[in-house]
């Protein structure tokens, strides 16, 4: 945690990170990650479709959209944007695919899954990443009381972070001995939250269950059964006792703290340091048909992202006020502030520094790296959502079809030319971050070697394995 907090809002640190990742990428050696920089698309011209409607889910990481609207960045670009909250990720996805929405605040897995035909098939793209980090895992008070005594404590008497899921093992065993399933909630089958929760559980030796071809429950061979609940309903579902914990974005972990119904145990930043989170997703044909409009909306969102991270987070207070309005996130201001202003409250009286909890602009948060897309695809394969083995090139091709740094660069470069954002905030990269550490289990990830990465996990599908209703089969 300490390491990260000193990192954020620090330009020198950012530059160092670029150099490091560029150096790593350069010695990647894969033919697809050869260090050749991504070239910006050319997107000039008049705005073709100025009246736009974007969808969002009531989560704090939709902030770039709310800010772009409220601070007039959309208007500056000649766009007239309506922002409409959606009930759940499925409704939002259908809205974008069906054309009711021109674009949306999306889970990174959604455009990937839609493009490979997992769930609704549609050609969606992600030309911009909205933020890094921003999620956490919360346990019910009951389960927290059961594990609290066993946790190693620091000098101040508070639990040492990060808290491993292995402490949950005796609780799960006790549930099992009583014949009860141990249920946890996440927000969507292809959500970051699903993969993060699974990663955390598996890193602690608990099996979160596999998906099989045709089964979307994902509870085959599971120690912990995960189910889908829309983010805003998480606290209510936890309170009702349907689930014992959940992984969700803010403000729904802090809501559990304020309502005293649960305790956040770990942030996703602690599971995977600076993990890529939501993306801005739209239909591929929209971007082809309206290139100048696409560039204009990306420029507006990038400006908003810069505003959110400007001056060490000086604008966050105002952002919190805007997000607390009923037509955006709508939760109470103090609940939103509890994670948006550089701190994160775990239990009452245990508020810790968490400056990296929501990063919107720094550390190239907006750039849609191919390697980020590939990480999501590896997790889909790890848990059986991708039923069969795929070769490395399939991962590269899919990532390149969905993640579109060329569109991002077209927008970002024009902002650099206009002097709106500094040149060093736009990375010169081949789209691969290089070998990344910072995972809770110590496994490193190299986006240019997806199959080698999958082989590193002790829990998860291996080369040649498939899942049927009976369980995992194959070598």
């Amino acid at each position: 945690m300490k390491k990260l907090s000193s990192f954020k809002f620090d330009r020198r640190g950012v530059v160092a990170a670029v150099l490091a990742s560029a150096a790593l990428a350069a010695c990647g050696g894969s033919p697809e990650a050869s260090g050749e920089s991504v070239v910006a698309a050319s997107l000039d011209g008049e705005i073709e479709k100025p009246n736009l409607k974007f969808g969002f889910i009531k989560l704090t990481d939709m902030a770039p959209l709310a800010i772009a609207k409220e601070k007039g960045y959309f208007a500056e670009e000649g766009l007239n944007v309506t922002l409409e909250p959606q009930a759940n990720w499925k409704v939002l996805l259908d809205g974008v695919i069906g054309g009711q929405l021109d674009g949306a605040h999306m889970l990174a897995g959604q455009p990937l899954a839609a493009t490979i035909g997992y769930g609704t098939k549609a050609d969606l793209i992600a030309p911009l990443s909205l933020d890094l980090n921003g999620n956490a895992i919360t346990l019910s008070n009951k389960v927290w009381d059961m594990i609290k005594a066993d946790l190693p404590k620091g000098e101040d008497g508070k639990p040492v972070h990060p808290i491993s899921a292995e402490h949950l093992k005796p609780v799960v065993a006790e549930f099992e001995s009583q014949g009860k399933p141990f249920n946890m909630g996440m927000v969507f089958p292809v959500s970051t939250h699903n993969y993060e929760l699974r990663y955390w559980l598996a890193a602690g030796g608990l099996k979160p269950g596999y998906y099989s071809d045709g089964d979307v429950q994902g509870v085959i061979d599971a120690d912990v059964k995960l189910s889908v609940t829309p983010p805003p309903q998480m606290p209510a579902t936890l309170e009702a006792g349907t689930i014992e914990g959940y992984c969700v974005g803010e403000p729904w972990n802090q809501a559990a703290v304020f309502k005293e119904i649960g305790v956040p145990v770990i942030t996703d930043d602690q599971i995977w340091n600076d993990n890529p989170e939501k993306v801005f997703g739209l239909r591929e044909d929209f971007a082809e048909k309206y290139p100048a409009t696409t560039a204009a909306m990306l420029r507006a969102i990038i400006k908003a992202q810069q505003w959110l991270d400007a001056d060490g987070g000086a604008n966050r207070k105002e952002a919190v006020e805007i997000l607390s309005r009923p037509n955006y996130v709508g939760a109470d201001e103090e609940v939103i502030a509890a994670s948006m202003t550089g701190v994160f409250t775990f239990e009452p009286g245990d508020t810790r520094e968490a400056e990296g909890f929501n990063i919107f602009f720094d550390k190239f948060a907006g750039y849609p790296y191919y390697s980020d897309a590939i990480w999501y695809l590896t997790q889909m394969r790890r848990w059986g959502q991708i039923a069969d083995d795929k070769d490395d090139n399939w991962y590269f091709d899919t990532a390149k079809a969905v993640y579109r740094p060329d569109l991002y660069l077209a927008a970002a470069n024009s902002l650099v030319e206009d002097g709106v954002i500094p040149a060093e905030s736009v990375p010169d990269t081949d789209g691969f971050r290089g070998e990344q550490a910072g995972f809770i289990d110590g496994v490193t990830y190299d986006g240019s070697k997806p199959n080698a990465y999958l082989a590193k996990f002790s829990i998860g599908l291996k080369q040649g394995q498939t899942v049927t209703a009976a369980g995992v089969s194959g070598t």
Partner: protein
Amino acid sequence: MATAYVDPDQPADAAVAANDSSPTGKAMLKDTAPVEASIAAEASPAMLKLKAIGTAILWPVVGIIAFIGLWALLAPQVDTSLGTLPGPVEVGEAGISLYGEYSAAKEAEGAFYAQQEANNQAAIAAGNPGGVRDFEYAGPPTFLDQIFTSLQTVALGFVLATIFAVPIGLMAGLSTRFNAAINPLVQIMKPVSPLAWLPIVTMVISAMITSADPLLPKAFVISALVVMLCSLWPTLINTAVGTSSIDKDLLNVGKVLRLGWFDKLTKLVLPASLPYIFTGMRLSLGVGWMVLIAAEMLAQNPGLGKFVWDEFQNGSSQSLARIMFAVIVIGLIGFLLDRGMMTLQSLASKNRTV
């Protein structure tokens, strides 16, 4: 059953209307006022007047006050994760703040158009007509906007339902064969919940409306069609019952006069079954309004249902009070719609030519 309640002093045509009513119609037409009136008829005129005032004003007021009192007393006892259940005062305040938001939104809208106009003037003055913008204000919909959206949706769904149900009902009433043919279908379709129709309607409409800028927003059409599918049946059934129970003598007279098919329909069948049709329409509108709120909640189509769901998702300390205010408004609108239809219904009964 309804006949028992009809006061002998009531106008003759009203009594006929009550007599004519179908089983569903009877339940709707039944009103407690004639009962009171018939009892009161034996008392002195002064007593009668007093009783009438009591029934019309005093007791309803007592009922409402008792309800608000109980609400204020019991609400603070219910502890939810969003705080205690709001009482009447908090809900009233929520209503006031919603109005405040509406005024603020109107101001922002005015400012937006003023700014746009100023920008356009400046652009024209600078010799840049390409810079002229003609945008609609894209602010979030206010509570009042949501009410109007809901009313428009229910109106479209209701009109569509009536257009479909009345001709089919007339045919079913006139032809026993046709009636027998559609009866099982109607019986099966009638109890289907709007929530079951919604995914089907959504997928079909999404597939059918493919234009990038459709005449009516997809969400609006989807809600209206779901309303139509659920509110079709009371009108259809009542029309069929009304048509089939026309006095056989009347039809025989028609035969004697050698009335053509069209004349028979417009001169005999329609006038005779009109009270039934209106009773059915009144029931349909009530069903439609209930269905609409559910459809809007589930499909996130704009309107009051979406307002309620969005507030539930907000989960702020104000949310419950705002939801309760919306519930009261939904009830009031439903009541007004019903009264409106009742007025139309009694007009239709009075203006009968047969």
